[in-house]
């Protein structure tokens, strides 16, 4: 399509938009969509199921399993979370019926699955994850571009940035200008560490000066207690002692705050879906145990677990899309 035709279409769209009445959509705190229903127990659900996949979803899967078993005490759910890469082979070999993954399946993984079964695997979005870059509540920095985030945290600056070590180099003045940044992050076993490395550091390496913390809450605590602190952690771990810095993507000047609204819209640069992959043949029903487990995950009860583990729950529109995939 040439530029002229594209410009005409956008102009037409804008004109039509001018006729529409605006509605108010206020940012909301992280809470379960009130339109979601609690899970309703059904009969005929029994047996055992295996879950093999993401370490990021390990806690979620464990909490979901515990909650699910309050409805079905005789059901057994075995969970193994050694990494998203372990999910596709487990689903293909049949050793797992649930494949939690913190990323979409790669093309090669989908091909391998399709080669075995003749159809593609089904990805059920179960939660949203967003990483916030936190600074101390008294830090006046307005926003950061992901290139600056790379410059702050990375030793290799693979996003094409230049090293930033003081808050003055990030644009602050006065007493902040000479203040060196104090970096907080996660240890290398953490899925958060890996996701931040890939998406914020362009697969580069962390600076050796990043203080590795054992958990997401510890990162926030570290930044709270250090005026010059900056760290990354889940959006759900925000406290009054820190600010989540609005971020813009590389090459963009549009800044987005770390709010559920921007996570739902897909505009916040460090947000992603968390998935559970299943083997569902087209036109055939899922195993009842797997079906009901996923229905529990997508219910109000299941999404409460998402908030407790520091992630963003799904809105009803998203749940409806995911439930449709199960039919």
């Amino acid at each position: 399509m040439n530029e002229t035709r594209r410009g005409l279409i956008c102009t037409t769209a804008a004109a039509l938009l001018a006729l529409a009445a605006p509605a108010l959509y206020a940012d909301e705190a992280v809470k379960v969509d009130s339109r979601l229903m609690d899970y309703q127990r059904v009969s005929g659900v029994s047996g055992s199921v295996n879950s093999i996949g993401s370490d990021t979803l390990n806690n979620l899967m464990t909490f979901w399993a515990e909650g699910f078993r309050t409805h079905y005490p005789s059901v057994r759910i075995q969970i193994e979370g050694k990494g998203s890469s372990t999910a596709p082979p487990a689903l293909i070999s049949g050793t797992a019926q649930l494949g939690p993954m913190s990323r979409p399946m790669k093309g090669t993984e989908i091909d391998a699955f399709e080669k075995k079964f003749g159809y593609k695997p089904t990805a059920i979005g179960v939660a949203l994850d967003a990483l916030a870059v936190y600074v101390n509540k008294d830090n006046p920095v307005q926003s950061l571009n992901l290139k600056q985030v790379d410059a702050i945290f990375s030793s290799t600056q693979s996003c094409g940035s230049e090293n930033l070590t003081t808050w003055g180099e990030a644009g602050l003045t006065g007493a902040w200008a000479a203040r060196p940044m104090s970096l907080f992050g996660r240890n290398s076993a953490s899925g958060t560490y890996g996701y931040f490395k890939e998406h914020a550091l362009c697969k580069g390496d962390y600076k050796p000066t990043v203080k590795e913390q054992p958990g997401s809450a510890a990162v926030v605590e570290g930044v709270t207690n250090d005026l010059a602190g900056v760290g990354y952690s889940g959006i759900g771990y925000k406290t009054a002692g820190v600010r989540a810095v609005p971020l813009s993507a590389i090459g963009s000047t549009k800044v987005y705050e770390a709010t559920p609204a921007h996570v739902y819209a897909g505009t916040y640069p460090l947000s992603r879906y968390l998935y559970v992959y299943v083997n569902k043949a087209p036109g055939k029903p899922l195993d009842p145990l797997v079906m009901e487990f996923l229905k529990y995950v997508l219910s109000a009860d299941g999404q409460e677990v998402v908030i407790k583990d520091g992630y963003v729950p799904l809105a009803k529109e998203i749940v409806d899309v995911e439930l449709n995939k199960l039919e």
Partner: protein
Amino acid sequence: MRRWAWCLAVGVAGLLCVSGAAAAQSEVDILLDTLVDKGILTHVEAGLIRREISETSSARNAQVAKDVVPAWSRNWKWKGDIRLRNEYRDRSASTNVNRQRVRFRVGFDAKVADTLKATGQIATGSTSDPVSTNDSFDDSFNKKPFNLDLAYLTYTPEIMGIDETKMTGGIMPNPHVTHSPLVWDGDLNFDGVAAKITKEFGDSAVFAMAQLSSLDTDIHESSQMWSMQVGASGKLLAGSDEDILDHLKLEGAVSWINYGDVRAGGGENGAIGAAGGLKGNLLASVHDWNLINPTGAISTKVNGIPVKLYADWVHNTASTEYDNGYLFGAKVGKAKKPWDLKEGWEAGYFFERIDPNATFGAFTDSDFGGGGTNHKGHVYYVTLATLKNSTLTLKYLDTQQVTGSKSHFDTLQADWVTKF
């Protein structure tokens, strides 16, 4: 009212994405952001549209990649490396030598079918030396020869109850699990067939391997070497809160290696001659090589740094004396990231004693004592990751003969290796 806005947004966004260019994506973002700001779409609806566009775009790009890139090239992987070496040899029984050497290897892996792979590799070296791929800079810039170093097929059928079955035939890498060059030099490849099965039990695995290699054949006789190896490995404390225990891995294996029709008494036969001579073995007391070779290692991570202790022992049951060899060593670190304090270096040490008849001299470490058996001594090395895919290694081998003249043979090597 919002349904028509949804359809319009998806349609316009879809049209804008026909070109597939990055510029089209930013225009989609502008359109969707405007629709959200105007209240036509909610944030959730805009996010679902972005997700639908992303999934459609990914699927289209994957199909385009498949259509554009030939299937045969998607199934081929090329690999190789270059090693530049400076080596100083301090020998009490001969003149000292300082020489510069090069090793160049290039090859491919080709996935012929789901369960069949073909591998080929050519390398520098000599056709009369099975344990070296080096060429020296000592012949007035004459061109260096290339040899067929690897040429084998690997068949991996799925067998119920077995996690991995591998059958290999041709000129193949060493099929034995080994932790040191006590019995097998690192450059030694095997001409023959091998089969290995592996069964996994959670974080543990057991395996069994058998191989048969032809050493020398003529119309009068055929010399061969066959072996069997069984072993196990496991992370018995995986999941422990302590990192050292969580990463603790034990590995053990034992081999029986049988050389057939390789007779040493009464002079060298074809097999020994073709392999470059006895290389330390004593004719008077060795008539055959029937080796038992246990090997083991313990590895873990300390503060994220790999640490490994290993040991090897070999005993030649067909010899009447000087029939043992052993090695024990340790290594720390893994040189992966250039100039990284934690992941940019590796250091190691081992002590080895290889008695004259402990193993077939032509196939053991070619650097230790100049190659062959009848040596004992210490080896120290340090490796630094210098550039991406490149390392620099300094290695010092301090050896002397076990029996006989007890002459010294010290070697200092500086190696630059680049892989591609």
